[in-house]
């Protein structure tokens, strides 16, 4: 019998079929075929393009046993109010089965400012925890077993000195640095591109990142020195392909900077980690995560000539998409988050954060964050999704999307090269304009009803809303934090602080590794803002040209 006959019959019938009046593109606006089939993978060699789990090019996963060996780490990003309040939230989460810590800092801390800075008014402890000095680190991690669990810290511009405060706290508790495990986000390039929390121009920030990579290779070998992040790029409105391409391009830029500084690639590359978004378009997200592993492995091995297989592995954290959550009917956000989390798992993540249903309204309440954690636990222990490695591997659709996303990323890499590299492209506003255009197109599609958000621009009941209780940060938090900061400044040895800051300034003017100086200043209870200002005196500050 002719194998082609049914195919032709289907194609004829498809051509005549009447279709729903709906948009069939992906959430990124990608044109999609109605069916993917043999023809889409005709030239595809699964042996070289997929390999095997734990084997180059790692398309199917970075570990040979994946989730049968070890489940992903369930790590809820959290922080609010004072260090004491956040410490209590960590204990709450650990008691309910969370397996790692993840610190959310407030905006002043993220910008390297103290709580008493003029721009910090109204923002202390609002969207994360306020950390001004080692004294806050001590309160934040009090009674938590830092030698036994891993800690992730989402901090970028002042990452190096937040990390030295973390190290100084461990030192005071006699926990050896070599035993500390965790991740520092420390990804400044995506700050210029998307999240917009910087202090200095790119070059001094890159120096600090390379200094930290070199320091950790010697002293904190189990620490992930950077988490190269697409999450914020996607939240700012990029497409899946832009998130993939811009993130990996940032990764290549860090590698090139460290190599230029004289580091051996296999000394630092095994500690590079990544952080991706998982948005609502399920298959496109799975394909994006698989493509990320294959692209990274190929470039690390072939372009940068890394020899250690660990240098080739794109290990990543996934967070569900905050920007997909709606303020309308917040309870249905649980469903959105569950789908996104499942895509992260089927994409082979190493750790996962599930957003809480109330995050379009406020920081998560205890109830909301517990449901979010339970969502992961159901995927891990009830759904069966963790039983089989890369279960979507071999799907015509997913493999074709993985290939297409890889090609699109390569085209972006070429474009960035033509512009003179990532830093040049940032200064020209290239990434920012690409993202802003995608964000606007998506918003127009929503406004025109071509893209649907259930309960928002479709099926919205008149006047009926599901209200849920939301967490409030009391205005007393700011007062308490300001009082505590004043006390710390009052009881520390201020002459020693001035001397350490002067040492730091001198070192910054030269070329030595700055991490030991930052550690000394942190031990003396120099504040985050004092260190920022000391360094800004040498490095200068960065201003973005506003555009839209």
């Amino acid at each position, binding site marked *: 019998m002719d194998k082609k006959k049914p195919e032709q019959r289907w194609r004829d019938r498809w051509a005549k079929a009447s279709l729903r009046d709906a948009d069939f593109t992906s959430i990124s606006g990608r044109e999609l075929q109605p069916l993917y089939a043999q023809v889409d993978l005709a030239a595809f060699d699964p042996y070289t393009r997929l390999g095997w789990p734990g084997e180059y090019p790692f398309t199917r996963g970075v570990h040979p046993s994946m989730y049968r060996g070890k489940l992903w780490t369930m790590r809820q990003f959290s922080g609010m109010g004072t260090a004491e309040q956040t410490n209590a939230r960590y204990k709450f989460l650990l008691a309910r089965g969370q397996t790692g810590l993840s610190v959310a800092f407030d*905006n002043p801390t993220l910008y390297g400012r103290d709580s008493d800075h003029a721009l*910090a008014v109204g923002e202390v402890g609002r969207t994360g925890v306020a950390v001004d000095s080692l004294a806050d680190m001590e309160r934040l991690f009090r009674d938590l077993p830092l030698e036994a669990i891993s800690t992730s810290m989402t901090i970028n511009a002042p990452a190096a000195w937040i990390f030295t405060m973390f190290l100084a706290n461990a030192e005071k508790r006699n926990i050896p640095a070599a035993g500390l495990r965790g991740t520092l986000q420390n990804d400044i390039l995506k700050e210029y591109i998307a999240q917009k929390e910087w202090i200095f121009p790119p070059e001094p920030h890159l120096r600090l990142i390379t200094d930290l990579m070199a320091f950790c290779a010697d002293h904190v070998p189990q620490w992930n020195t950077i988490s190269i992040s697409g999450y914020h790029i996607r939240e700012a409105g990029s497409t899946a392909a832009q998130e993939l391409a811009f993130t990996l391009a940032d990764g290549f830029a860090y590698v090139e900077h460290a190599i230029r500084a004289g580091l051996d690639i296999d000394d630092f590359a095994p500690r590079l980690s990544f952080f991706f978004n998982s948005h609502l378009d399920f298959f496109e997200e799975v394909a994006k995560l698989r493509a990320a592993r294959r692209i990274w492995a190929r470039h690390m091995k072939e372009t940068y000539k890394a020899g250690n297989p660990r240098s080739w592995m794109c290990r990543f954290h996934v967070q569900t998409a905050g920007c997909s959550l709606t303020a309308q009917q917040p309870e249905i956000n649980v469903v959105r988050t569950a789908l996104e989390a499942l895509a992260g798992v089927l994409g082979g993540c190493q750790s996962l954060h599930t957003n809480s249903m109330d995050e379009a309204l406020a920081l998560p309440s205890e109830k909301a964050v517990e449901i979010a954690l339970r969502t992961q636990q159901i995927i891990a222990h009830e759904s069966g999704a963790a039983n089989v490695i890369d279960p979507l591997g071999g799907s015509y659709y997913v493999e074709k999307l993985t290939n297409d996303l890889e090609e699109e990323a390569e085209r972006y890499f070429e474009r960035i090269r033509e512009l003179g590299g990532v830093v040049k492209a940032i200064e020209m506003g290239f990434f920012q304009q690409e993202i802003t255009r995608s964000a606007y197109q998506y918003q127009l599609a929503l406004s025109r009803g071509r893209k649907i958000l259930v309960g928002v621009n479709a099926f919205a009941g008149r006047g009926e809303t599901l209200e849920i209780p939301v967490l409030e940060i009391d205005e007393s938090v700011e007062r308490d934090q300001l009082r505590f900061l004043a006390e710390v400044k009052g009881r520390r040895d201020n002459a020693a602080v001035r001397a350490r800051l002067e040492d730091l300034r001198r070192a910054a003017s030269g070329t030595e590794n700055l991490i030991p100086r930052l550690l000394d200043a942190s031990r003396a209870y120099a504040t985050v803002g004092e260190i920022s200002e000391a360094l800004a005196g040498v490095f200068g500050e960065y201003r973005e040209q*506003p555009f839209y």
Partner: protein
Amino acid sequence: MAAAKIKVIIAKPGLDGHDRGAKVVARALVEAGMEVVYLGLQQTPESIVRAAVEEDADVIGLSILSGAHLSHFRRVRELMNASGLGERLLTGGGIIPTKDQEKLRALGVGRVFGPGDDLRDIVGYIRDWHSSHSR
């Protein structure tokens, strides 16, 4: 004679890098025929109102996702009133709980928009306000 364009200042006060909404709204207002001055990030209430005076703006729109909306809106409204902009519209958007939206109204802030609101509603709201407050 063509009607004067509605002039809108859009700004991000304080330490808040979430500029997606501000930029999308700025584009939508321009496409709707308004004149937009986008001040960008890390603005203070003082710098925003100073710009509004210099530009003789009809509307100030603040984008705040940092939780600091009460203090920023309050301060900008006070400075507007003290600078002869008492009759101009102060509006905005971000992650702002329903309860706080009522507090903001009491401070003299217009509608504030949030996730899921339609761009056409924002455009319509500013146009309606302008036609009932022409000077």
